[in-house]
């Protein structure tokens, strides 16, 4: 690591380009974490056969595995350090950027991202953007999601609990709705990596130790399931929608994980409301 930032219960290590590389727990235990943005090309389909529909509002169907972005942006990341707060501002490409925030008095890593407008006109290909975290945790194909809104459900890759499934689409067949969080566990090390999101998204664990969340989509073909429109919102300037969102990352022991992510999710959902008033005179008079 080139430098580190201190959170309340762990340290976050970064390489010399500002890329997160690992999280180190107080006992000296380290988990490698590589975070990246990638994209899927949306399958255009031909909509003639029922099983060859386009990726659209109802179905996510990529045209093959996700592709990494080539970092062609020469702008160097910015490191912002205040007492107790470290931020790394990073441009991934011309339409994706992120801030990683680590504060000394909180137990999670905050990832703030801005994505869009997704360029589709030059190549005529719809794109579906994901954030992926690759860790060195041994997860044995298991992912935990909160898909029913209450409990974390165990999802096994390429498997369903009540019937024998043959997976014909490696990505779509393993994507799940993620309302508030998803998690992976390394039972041997007793560690859990949990990602909380600020809005319902799709998510998966397509390889061991990795989780991904779909943060933005723009498709050019209707999937013929009824909406009769492609997912192609143009935004206020006609160029395409720009979105800003946040993820919060937790790494803790399996025993402590539920207490931490439930408390954090509830606190996030019921976030305090901030209101303003002008005042004249002194604060004492106002009080």
């Amino acid at each position, binding site marked *: 690591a080139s430098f580190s930032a201190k959170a309340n219960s762990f340290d976050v290590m970064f390489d010399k380009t500002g890329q997160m590389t690992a999280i180190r727990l107080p006992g000296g235990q380290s988990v490698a974490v590589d975070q990246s943005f990638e994209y899927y090309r949306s399958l255009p389909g031909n909509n003639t056969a029922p099983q060859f529909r386009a990726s659209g509002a109802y179905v996510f169907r990529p045209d093959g595995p996700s592709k990494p972005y080539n970092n062609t942006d020469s702008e160097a990341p910015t490191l912002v350090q205040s*007492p107790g707060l470290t931020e790394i501002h990073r441009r991934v490409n011309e339409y994706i950027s992120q801030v990683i925030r680590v504060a000394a008095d909180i137990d999670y890593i905050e990832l703030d991202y801005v994505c869009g407008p997704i360029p589709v006109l030059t190549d005529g290909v719809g794109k579906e953007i994901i954030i992926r975290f690759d860790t060195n945790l041994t997860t044995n194909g298991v992912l935990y999601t909160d898909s029913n809104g209450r409990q974390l459900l165990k999802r096994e890759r390429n498997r369903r609990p009540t019937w024998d499934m043959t997976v014909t689409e490696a990505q779509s067949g393993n994507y799940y709705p993620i309302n508030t969080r998803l998690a992976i566990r390394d039972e041997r090390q007793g560690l859990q990596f949990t990602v909380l999101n600020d809005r319902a998204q799709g998510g998966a664990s397509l390889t061991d130790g990795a989780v991904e969340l779909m943060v933005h989509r723009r498709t050019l073909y209707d999937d013929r399931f009824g909406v009769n429109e492609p997912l192609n*919102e143009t935004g206020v300037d006609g160029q395409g929608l720009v979105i800003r969102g946040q993820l919060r990352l937790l790494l803790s022991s399996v025993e402590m994980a539920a207490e931490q992510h439930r408390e954090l999710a509830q606190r996030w959902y019921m976030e305090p409301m901030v209101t303003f008033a002008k005042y004249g005179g002194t604060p004492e008079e106002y009080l």
Partner: protein
Amino acid sequence: EGRVSALREWMGVMQHHDAVTGTEKQHVANDYALKLYKSVDKCRQVVAEGLNKLMVKQPQLWEGSPLVVDRLFCENLNVSACPVTESDDSLAVTIYNPMGRTVSHTVRLPVVNKVFTVLDPLGKSVSSTIVPIPAPVLAIPGRQSKARDELVFEAVVPPVGFATYFVRQNSPQSVPIEPIVRKIT
């Protein structure tokens, strides 16, 4: 009742599966957003009056009227824009905590100036910092704001209650705490 029911009813409409999953047509999505905005706006008047009642004294919340709420809430904090916090005025920032326990909340306010004093509800100075807003956020289409930085401080708010923090700009007691900003090469 009249002001709260609109949001209740529109939230009911939005239990429809198209609204939940985003499979509605675009013009329907636009309409949902408009209806939500209008009904949330009505509820804000109720929230403002509720806060007034919780406070011991009745402050003038904005421009002399206790019921003018249009600029009492900032709708664009998700793009780090807020005409209220970007003004030169001293502000009372009232934070309501709906949780049943005390929470510590990081407040991030888009600002134009760089010198502030933040006081807690007892009038004691609170540690704060100024952090630059990332350039891509500044360029978000439709963002109308002069703010280039955010004022960041921690607020401790009691359970199911509120705390008022005071943000004073360019006051003689203010000592700016600027972050170290450097490019990673």
